[in-house]
């Protein structure tokens, strides 16, 4: 899929662990792992909003389009 989720980059910038982010966003570590590994088929706006709030960033910082 040409949409890449750059959560790990933002997590590194904010020095936040996966467990802490999952807790702040309100998703399970397993689902966060699916997002991090680009296995997700879709992201809900509510999840994106919670991620942006927790990582203090915009959706553009998290999502990237790469032409394959």
């Amino acid at each position: 899929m040409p949409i890449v989720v750059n959560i790990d980059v933002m997590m590194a910038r904010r020095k936040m662990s996966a467990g802490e982010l999952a807790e702040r966003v309100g998703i399970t570590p397993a689902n966060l792992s699916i997002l991090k590994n680009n296995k997700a088929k879709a992201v809900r706006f509510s999840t994106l909003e919670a991620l942006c709030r927790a990582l203090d960033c915009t959706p553009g910082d998290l999502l990237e389009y790469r032409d394959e």
Partner: protein
Amino acid sequence: MKLSNDKSLLLSRVCVWMFALILAALVVGAPWIWPFVLHRTGIVQLYVTVTYLSAVPAGVVLFCLHRLLASAAAADVFTDANVARLRAVSWCLAAAALVYAGGGFFDWYLFVLAAAAAFAALIVRVLKNVLAEAVELKRENDYTI
């Protein structure tokens, strides 16, 4: 009368086992059963042959139905394995239809069975297509975070 899901599943499983027993009895007793049922001696050999040829797909169908019901009991229905089972059932019914159609050239009653088996194959094929789409939808839903 509306059965609960569990009772309905149990009824289906009992029916599958009953049909398996009937199939086993037919396979073992075909040379004796058909002369008793049919009163035209000329076609007994045909019916015995058709029974043996269609017993294999019938056995596969019953096994697949058994596995499908087991997965339904385990609440694990939307899987690729179940799609493959329905596909196998559909092809087995088509194979049985071919066998009956072949026999129909010698006794036209078998054409009726062939038509019924072909129609059942079509129904199962449509169900397989629907289940395949449902599996894809579930996968998408599971991976929506």
